């Protein structure tokens, strides 16, 4: 799990001002599932999984996800935003152990 927290953000190759841009983002994360002991009882511990994803563009939040353990390992998230000005799109993933992983993409107009 050396790659934990690696973030990839993909934007379309050409963006025009005013376009609605579809973003795909991926984070490498184990997203621990519920574990049970031999009696089938749920082991009570602080499971390590991502519980919040926030995407900001030009200082504004464009989309946020509150996630649970029902989200897959190495999850991908897709969302859209309206590209008005050149700037940076930042996606931040927060996990339950306080981990914070960030990925950015430059919004440029061709």
């Amino acid at each position, binding site marked *: 799990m050396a790659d934990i927290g690696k973030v990839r953000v993909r934007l379309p190759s050409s963006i025009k001002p005013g376009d609605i841009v579809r973003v795909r983002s991926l984070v490498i994360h184990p997203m621990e599932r519920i574990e*049970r002991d031999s009696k089938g009882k*749920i082991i009570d511990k602080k499971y390590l999984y991502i519980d919040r994803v926030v995407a900001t563009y030009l200082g504004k939040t*464009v989309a946020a996800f509150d*996630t649970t353990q*029902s989200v*897959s390992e*190495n999850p*991908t998230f897709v*969302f859209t935003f309206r590209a008005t000005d050149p700037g940076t799109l930042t996606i931040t993933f927060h996990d339950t152990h306080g981990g914070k992983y960030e990925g950015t993409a430059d919004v440029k107009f061709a």
Partner: protein
Amino acid sequence: MNDHSISRRLVITTLGALGLAGAGGLTLAPRRAHAQQLGQHETVDEALKRIFGARPMKDGSGVVKLDLPLIAENGAVVPVSVDVASPMTAANHVKAIYVVADKNRIPVVFRTTLGPEAGQAAIGATIRLGETGDVRAIVEQSDGTLLAVKREVKVTVGGCGG
């Protein structure tokens, strides 16, 4: 001399009280977070009741498009996407999209909060499905109406384990 010892005692007790207050705050905060946790072990009815209460839900099949594979060979990674026909203006936009998997032990998969800046209400993610069952998308609009759609997905190998 006497004065000095009193002031020291005062300082120590004040510090102690502060420390206690700090510790109390620390132990309270995670407990409160736990109570409000989105994902819990519950049935889907309990989950919907907990989140939406008795608010009426309309059928959103004309407006909301929920895209999922008909058969998920691997329940550990199932792509889901939700598309809502909405103008996404400040007055009329999609506020939140919930994805709920009926048969999962933790039925609420995720909640997306959107604003007019999103331009379009189209989101997607990869989720886990424990077994064959319905998957619902519940859309909360800015005026508070709830639109729900659901689709059955057949799962060959479950992905929730535990």
